[in-house]
């Protein structure tokens, strides 16, 4: 037990800073993918065929592309085009590009739960597309998709560990560091697990809170 605790206290410099990077990555990519995902949803239900096509194509491509491949494209292929993006921003872009496709799909399933009559009524009142979507449809859609949306972000939190393979010193890299320091690997991985459980807790709390406040009585 003592040895187990020492793995944490002796290596707090590595464990703390790496988890901090995980949190940064999660927050930045989380906000960006929520925004981009919402925008993609808007495109997919918009009256402009070109936007609908783009949205569909984007989701089709990114949702079916392994995340590691998205990272590899950004880190190894894009530099060949003389485009230089640093590793941390690359990781944010890769996670955002990938997760937003899932956000889009979750949100679209929410839109499908809003009766068509509501949008028709809103249009009949003379509302524009943006107004219909922003004031009538999306607020209701968001309320219904809280559980799947939190699952998407929960998955993204764990997906951040892929960035460790692409030169972002986050939680996924802790094991490599501490194995070089000769620490017991089981203890190290247990601490990483505990770290992720702590990070997931706020997501669970958020989900409960939102479900309580936003629950739609139908």
């Amino acid at each position, binding site marked *: 037990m003592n040895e187990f605790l020492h793995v944490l206290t002796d290596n707090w410099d590595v464990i703390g800073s790496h988890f901090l990077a995980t949190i940064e990555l999660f927050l930045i990519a989380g906000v960006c993918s929520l925004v981009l995902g919402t925008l993609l949803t808007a495109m997919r239900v918009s009256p402009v065929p070109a936007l609908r096509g783009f949205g569909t194509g984007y989701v089709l491509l990114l949702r079916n592309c392994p995340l590691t491949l998205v990272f590899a494209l950004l880190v190894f292929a*894009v530099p060949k085009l003389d485009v230089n993006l640093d590793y941390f921003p690359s990781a944010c872009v890769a996670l955002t590009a990938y997760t937003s496709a899932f956000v889009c799909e979750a949100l679209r399933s929410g839109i499908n739960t809003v009766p068509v009559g509501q949008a028709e009524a809103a249009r009949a009142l003379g509302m524009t597309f943006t107004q219909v979507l*922003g*004031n009538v449809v999306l607020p209701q859609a968001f309320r219904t998709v809280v559980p799947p949306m939190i699952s998407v972000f929960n998955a993204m939190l764990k997906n951040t560990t892929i960035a460790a393979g692409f*030169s972002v010193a986050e939680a996924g*890299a802790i094991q490599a560091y501490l194995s070089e320091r000769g620490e017991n690997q089981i203890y190290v991985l247990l601490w990483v697990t505990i770290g992720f459980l702590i990070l997931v807790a706020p997501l669970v709390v958020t989900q409960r809170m939102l479900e309580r406040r936003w629950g739609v009585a139908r």
Partner: protein
Amino acid sequence: MRITRIVAMTAAVATLSLGLAACGKEGTPTPETPAGSGAAPQAASDACTSSGTSFAPASGVAIAGSPTFEKIKSAGKVVIGVKFDQPNLGYKDASGKRCGFDIEIAQLIASKLGVDPAKIEYKEIASANRETAIKGGEVDYYVGTYSITEKRKADVSFAGPYFVAAQDLLVRKDDTSITGSSSLQGKKVCSATGSTPIQRVRDQKLTDAGNIVEFKTYSECVSQLIDKKVDAVTTDDAILKGYAAQNQSLLKVVGSPFTDPATGRPYPEKYGIGLAHDDKALRDFVNAALEKAEQDGTWQKIYDGTLGKSGSAATAPALEKY
């Protein structure tokens, strides 16, 4: 109303992300695409070439009191643990051919044991599993950048060293600004995630923490070096020389070993041949074979035909028999 405003406000941010994302999505160049102006030409072919040393099996070999040798003799083949991802050191090319300095040292020992090169069975063993593989008899001996350390000597025994490596730097051929560990300030330095060489760079503050780049494998670091995303790759010079030899027109090894600030001495990594712990008869035999190869020029011929192609010279180290 509020949501509309938030959507409108964040639209700008999202557009930016979308632009970036589109970059990532559409930027799917095929590797053959000629890169833009000033970009490096593609790395040289990775096909294996040997030093041309012939390893004819010796006849009438007998090693009294060596269980490993008895096993090799009765099986009519030898099982050697090797690496496969280190060009010109321990490498397997696309066609399945193996080559490199460590591979030829392994073949040399096999020939002295009287084993025909065609009867060698190679086993790829990851670094973390080497002691287990030797102890369990999974391999007869191991040749693959295996550093001799006191801790490992408790589990296995070592013949050699047949090479002494030091931490060095691999840079682009046209880069004259990096001359050693003291000229790394402001440069991006890459190595394997969490490895000792990169921790030395970090601990001795040879460059800013933000300039330290870590990938799982050295070949990823080398790819980033060629694409100018990093300025140097650091690890044992033997590994770096292998990459320099593979990309002769693009890369070079600086040739200035890192030194311990406390003692002023380099950090030597003595590569040995890993053998079963209690097989002293075989260890003595392998040491004698290495000694002979060092004296009759075979060692030098192997080196020049493999790692030596990087342009960096080396001489055989003194053996440490025990």
